[in-house]
Every structure is written in structure tokens, then in C-alpha cells.
């Protein structure tokens, strides 16, 4: 599949050109994986949404609201309430998207475009644009800098997320129903699959994943701010598409999304090591994503 070739090509290119800048050091490579963890978790949710023929544009805003909810709740009520508040906010917003799409039959593109703006605004007003520190060390260990058997917790979250995501997507009735719904909703409906329920669940899953991504950001950065997740929309969608998931539904891959996400992370990292200006980084990244998406879609249509 194209994503593996692209991944390898970008890796080899940076390995050769940025060898002296430390691209290949274990520290840098680990860093790439740690930095991509939130995006990878968001990508898992998006694989489900796209496969069911829906889209979620609001996950970036959900990340910010979830991280802020967790940080604020943790200040007063401690770890458990903070975690529940963060995940709960994600699931609740996802469920709101789900109800609007599945039961009020509004198109997910427009619904999530609206909730993206709505919750970006709510994230800003929640703390008056202020950043909220996250001091709880158990939390930052669990969702950020901690280690288990010397494996960083962000790597563990990535592995668990991808493992569960892949299992549900490929090996459960729900996964099969998601694919059938995205592939041919009428066929799914007449086969007794509740298409509305599938649509509700995939958007709720998207929200839940974004909520977890928010916790991971808050844990790693030891703070929550309204800007979290803001710049992930393009990267995550690109990672998922490059990873072999069709925008129109019916086909996708959770493992592919992981590779796509790592590829995007590697790209960010390499462009920074190349000492490009931020504006140039954005331009180059945009062009490479365009190329990658075009190549993957050509491959998918064949």
C-alpha cells in the first residue's frame, strides 16, 4: 500500500539529509512517536466516522474543550473527576454530533462544521483564553511523561488505542456494520442493520477519541489551553486518507491511519529540523499532503 512506501520514502529522505541534525537519534524518533500520540488517537475515531460515510470536523475543538474540562475539574476535585470530565466532555459532544446526524438526519459535514466553531468558542470562553496548569503528577504521569516498564505512557496509549480500534474495526459485528453502512446504507438497512445507530456511535466514538487526545495533550504539556487540537484537523484527516481510508466510506484501515499519522509526525519533525520558517513549513507540509492524498486516492480507485 502507498502509505508504507510514502512512509519509507520520507523516512529515508530525512535520514539522509538530516543525519547530522540528529533525525535518526533514538531520542528524536521517540519524540516523533510521543508527539503524534494525540493525533493518532483522533485518527482512530475518524477512521470509524469516514468508514460509515460520515465526517467529523469538530474533533479539534473537542480536544480543547476536553483538556480544559479535565484541567479545571482536576483543580477542585482531583484526578478521577478530572479524567471523567475530560473524557465525558468528548463523549458528550460526540453524542451531540451523533444525535444531530443520525436522528435529525442533518449532514455530518455541516453539523460538525457548526459544532467545530461552537466549541472553539466555548473553549475560549471557558477560561477567558487563559491557560490552566495541570499539576497532578499522577495525571501527567498517566497521560504524559510517565513510563511503565520503561515504555513511555504515550506509546502505551497509542498501542492500546490502535489495538482496540483495529480489533473492533476488523473483527466485530459493529465494525462490519460500520463498513456496510458507509458502503451501501440502503443495503445495510434492508439487511436489518440500524444505520442510524451506527452513525450515532461512530460520531460518539470520534468525540471520545478526541476527549482522550485532549487528556494526552494536557498530560504531556502539563497545561490545557484553548489552542490545543486547533492545528490537527488537516493533519489527522490527511493521515487517515493516506492510510487507506476512503472519504466516501466502506473501506479503511486503523493500522494504516497509525502509519499515516506517524508519517505526518515525521514530516513535521523533519521540516523543523531543516530550520524552515514556520510559514515555509506550512507551505511544504500542505504540498506534500496534497501529493500524498492524490497518490493514495489514485491507488484506491484502481
Amino acid at each position, binding site marked *: 500500500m502507498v502509505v508504507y512506501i510514502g512512509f519509507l520514502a520520507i523516512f529515508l529522505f530525512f535520514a539522509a539529509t538530516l543525519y547530522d541534525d540528529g533525525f535518526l537519534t533514538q531520542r528524536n524518533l521517540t519524540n516523533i512517536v510521543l508527539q503524534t500520540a494525540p493525533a493518532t488517537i483522533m485518527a482512530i475515531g475518524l477512521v470509524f466516522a469516514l468508514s460509515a460515510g460520515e465526517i467529523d470536523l469538530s474533533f479539534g475543538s473537542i480536544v480543547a474543550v476536553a483538556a480544559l474540562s479535565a484541567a479545571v475539574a482536576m483543580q477542585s476535585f482531583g484526578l478521577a473527576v478530572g479524567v471523567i470530565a475530560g473524557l465525558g466532555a468528548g463523549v458528550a459532544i460526540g453524542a451531540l454530533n451523533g444525535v444531530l446526524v443520525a436522528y435529525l438526519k442533518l449532514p455530518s459535514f455541516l453539523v460538525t462544521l457548526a459544532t467545530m466553531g461552537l466549541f472553539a468558542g466555548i473553549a475560549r470562553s471557558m477560561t477567558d483564553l487563559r491557560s490552566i496548569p495541570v499539576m497532578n503528577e499522577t495525571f501527567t504521569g498517566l497521560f504524559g511523561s510517565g513510563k511503565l516498564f520503561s515504555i513511555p505512557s504515550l506509546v502505551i496509549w497509542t498501542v492500546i488505542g490502535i489495538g482496540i480500534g483495529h480489533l473492533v474495526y476488523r473483527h466485530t459485528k459493529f465494525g462490519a*456494520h460500520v463498513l456496510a453502512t458507509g*458502503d451501501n446504507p440502503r443495503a445495510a438497512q*434492508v439487511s436489518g442493520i440500524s444505520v442510524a445507530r451506527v452513525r450515532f456511535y461512530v460520531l460518539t466514538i470520534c468525540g471520545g477519541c478526541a476527549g482522550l487526545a485532549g487528556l494526552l495533550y494536557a498530560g504531556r504539556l502539563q497545561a490545557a489551553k484553548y489552542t490545543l487540537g486547533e492545528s490537527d484537523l488537516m493533519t489527522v484527516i490527511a493521515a487517515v486518507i493516506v492510510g487507506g481510508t*476512503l472519504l466516501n466510506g466502506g473501506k479503511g484501515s486503523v493500522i494504516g491511519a497509525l502509519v499515516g499519522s506517524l508519517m505526518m509526525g515525521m514530516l513535521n519533525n523533519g521540516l523543523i529540523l531543516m530550520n524552515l520558517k514556520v510559514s515555509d513549513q506550512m507551505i511544504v507540509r500542505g504540498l506534500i499532503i496534497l501529493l500524498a492524498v492524490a497518490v493514495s486516492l489514485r491507488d484506491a480507485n484502481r
Partner: protein
Amino acid sequence: MTAEAEVLSLKNIHMAFGGVVAIQDFSLDLRAGEIVALVGDNGAGKSTLIKIVSGVYTPTSGTIRLGGETTSFADASSARSKGIEVVYQDLALADQQPVYMNMFLGRELTKPPFGLLDKARMRQESQTLVDELDVRIPSASSTIRDLSGGQRQGIAIARATHWASKLILLDEPTAALGVAETARVEELIANLKAKNLAILIISHSLDQVFKLSDRICVLRRGEQIGIRETAKTDKNEIVSMITGVA
């Protein structure tokens, strides 16, 4: 024929949408191992009748008996659970999924202890099924979009055969097919009789109707014009029944 062999019995079915009468006073008995063709012009009420039998519509009045017992269908799932399968004109296949997932669409097999999909068993049962019906496809793992129109139709019919215990409804089974493929699918339908299912087929092709059916039921503007035994009628009679022109 004995009463025991009667699979589906429709008696005085009446269907109105608001003030518009779609079906009036329709009665038909279907027996096991029998193919009945439903013919009529566009708007004659064939689709409405299919939807009544498959549980999508509930008739305004009249009785449906299945296997001798009076029944009613809350929805399409309830008709399906009672052994009635429909092969839709658009086939209702998920094109990007493999054959075996389509065969078990909405009724996937799982295995203990975690309730994960039993893909191996679905693949193997699908293969057995297509082999048995002689639907020639590369394998049960093939993706639907890589198959020809005739092969897809074969998959849709095989799926219905697998799940139907009483009745299969076929809606225009060969409308989209070429000559050779039509012949293959007709052969397949004729073979279904051996499975002792009742088959109700809608077709615009009178050639096909005469080739396949045991009896022909004619509808015109919601009215049941009559039922003829295929062996005892001819195209002229059926055409004049359909059009109302003697």
C-alpha cells in the same frame, strides 16, 4: 395440491394510501416448490404488493397467512425472521466488501468467547453455498465490485436462498443483465424450485415469465385481473390481460 403445501396465502388484500387505492382485493396462494410470476404495467401495484409481502407496508385490510397461520409483519426484519427473503432490483450488496460479508450482512457469525467475527466459517459457508448453486465466482473472498453483473445477481440470490425458509421474492432479477448472464440466472432460479421454496418473481420479460413460472398473476391499476396456469395460457392472453385491450 394439499393445504399443507401452501406456503403463503394472501386473502382480500387491500391497500390504500390516504384516498388512493394501490391494491384492491388481491388474493393469491403460493405453494412450496412453485414459481409464480407477477406481471403488470408500470403502476399496476407490483411493487406495493412486494412491499406488503416483505413487511415494509402493512395492508389496510385483508389477511396474510404464512405456513397456514395468520400473521402480520411489523417491519421488514419481522418478515425476514419468518423466512421471507427479497432479492431487490438493486441487489442490496455492499460493493467494497467481500462476498462472504455480503452473504452474512446484518447476520454475521461470531465465535466464543469474545463474540468476534468468525470470518473463516462465513467464508467457508459462503463458498459451499455458491458452489452448491453453481454461481461461478473466483472465491468467497472476492470483493463484490470485482464481479460481473450476473455474478452479483447470483450472490444476491444465493444469499436469499441461504436465509429463506419459506419464500423468496425476486424483483426484476435480470433487468440489468446481458443475454448469456440472463440465461445463467434463469437457470439458477429454476434450480431453486428443488429447494422446496415458494418463489414470487416480478418480471417485465414475458419470455422469461413463460420460461420460469408455473402460474402467472396479472395486475392492472391495483386490480387483480386473474391467475393463469402457464401451461394453459399464451402470450396473447397475458398481454391482453395486462393492457386491458382484447
